[in-house]
């Protein structure tokens, strides 16, 4: 059984409907929705106090200044926020696979992976996107001319985040209950992506551009936005597409091993 994302109009319609339903469900509880958005933005701002305090004392860290870190923070926050807003199901994919909950999706016409990713929307993701854009605006490093590249950078960061989540969660097909470990691996990517690139060298740098692609969710998108380099933009787009292709491949491979959970249930 193969599942692929294609430019099919019905698939696009299904995706739109899934997102609209998730959005309606999230906004239904307006107070909780607003609280999650506000607190996530506050959370990101509070975390940034660390860098603000440090860079008041040390203006340049191996060539990185506060503005550079703001752009990095902004791109990572916006990319992560977009990922969990549009594909929030990735957060629970490991549990869904291990719990045999794919059964309900397998008997429906839409592609299983697309459906599983769209099962949830994390309202806090809006807070991430908003605070991310605020960080970028406050950095004074990105002008209006860079807006198209900013869209590309955030989208590529989000795609790579989702791809990582799919790969880590798909390990559940082979290893069973690994949802906590998958989330922790995902958090490691976020953790690495929030620190300036020059801190890492040698083998670590190789890891950050391959297995834990913090380089493609943070460093390279931030560089694209700041330098407006076409080569870097093309490399970023290719890397995001490559990671997504690998993720879909790993998921499809795992799906062949999937054993039914013999569960009755509905999603919505």
């Amino acid at each position: 059984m193969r599942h692929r994302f294609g430019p099919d109009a019905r698939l696009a319609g299904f995706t739109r409907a899934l997102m609209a339903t998730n959005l309606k469900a999230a906004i239904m509880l307006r107070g909780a929705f607003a609280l999650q958005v506000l607190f996530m933005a506050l959370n990101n701002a509070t975390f940034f106090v660390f860098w603000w305090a440090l860079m008041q004392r040390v203006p340049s860290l191996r060539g990185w200044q506060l503005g550079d870190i703001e752009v990095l923070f902004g791109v990572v926050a916006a990319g992560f926020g977009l990922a969990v807003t549009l594909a929030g199901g990735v957060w629970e994919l490991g549990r869904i696979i291990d719990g045999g909950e794919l059964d309900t999706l397998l008997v429906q016409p839409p592609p299983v992976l697309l459906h599983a990713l769209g099962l949830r929307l994390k309202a806090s993701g809006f807070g991430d996107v908003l605070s991310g854009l605020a960080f970028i605006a406050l950095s004074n490093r990105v002008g209006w001319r860079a807006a198209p590249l900013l869209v590309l950078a955030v989208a590529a960061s989000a795609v790579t985040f989702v791809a990582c989540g799919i790969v880590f969660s798909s390990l559940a097909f082979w290893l069973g209950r690994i949802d906590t470990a998958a989330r922790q691996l995902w958090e490691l990517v976020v953790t690495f992506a929030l620190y300036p690139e020059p801190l890492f060298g040698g083998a670590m740098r190789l890891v950050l551009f391959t297995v834990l692609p913090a380089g493609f969710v943070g460093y390279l998108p931030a560089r694209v936005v700041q330098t407006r380099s076409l080569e870097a933009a093309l490399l970023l787009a290719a890397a995001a597409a490559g990671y997504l292709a690998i993720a879909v491949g790993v998921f499809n491979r795992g799906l062949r091993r999937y054993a039914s959970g013999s569960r009755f249930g509905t999603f919505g």
Partner: protein
Amino acid sequence: MTRTIVRYGAFARAAAAQARREPGELYGRVVFFAVILGVFSSLWRAIAEAGMPIAADPRELVWYLAATEWILLSAPPLHVELQEAIRAGDIACRLARPVSFVGAAFAEGLGLLAVRAPVLGATAFACAWAFTARVPPPGAFLRVVPFGLAAAAVITALYLGIGLLAFWLQDVAPVFWVWQKLLFVLGGLMLPLQVYPAFIRRAAAFTPFPTVLADPASFMLRAGGTDAATLAVTLALWGAATGAGVQWLFRRAAAALTVNGG
């Protein structure tokens, strides 16, 4: 008194046994801990190249971070499980037990802490040693370990308090995020408080955060270590205040609780 200790000790032992059987999350924390120490040892080296903002050796700051992270990661995130129990309605079964709900939950937290603290402590020691090639004097450990364990117990009680908010909020994650980040900044998790501006240091003094993180970990720094007697008193006071606050929250929640079905 003995019966009470035995009764709550059973909760602690059961939780510890459960944690030993499912070590996945703890192993994840171990990896995360090693990564964070690695990142920060690189960061402190870079800062040393640029000019240190405080009178401390970069290697001392790695040991300081090892201590703060050890305290923080050892405290089990009780609020997650408590929130799920409240949302799913499982809380009704627990309320029927002939023991204090808060006492039992805290005892379970201490049981988890007893499993996590030694493993994470060993990780902290091994990683900080590997990244700095030096070990602080034994006297520092003699003070950091007991104060760190007491601080982790207070943080566990604070997590319990956050979990109880689920009676009203359903999802306590937003409260936890902000609380956690305040702990990072006002508790001096990654940077000693001396690095922060005066207004942040003044604000921190009115919260329990420095008492549960920066002060116990400051024994790792040659300059600026807290007085042990003062720390013991402030930890006891914040522990008592947290305990009273959690009890009050629970009484309010139980009074407002309506259990439907069975």
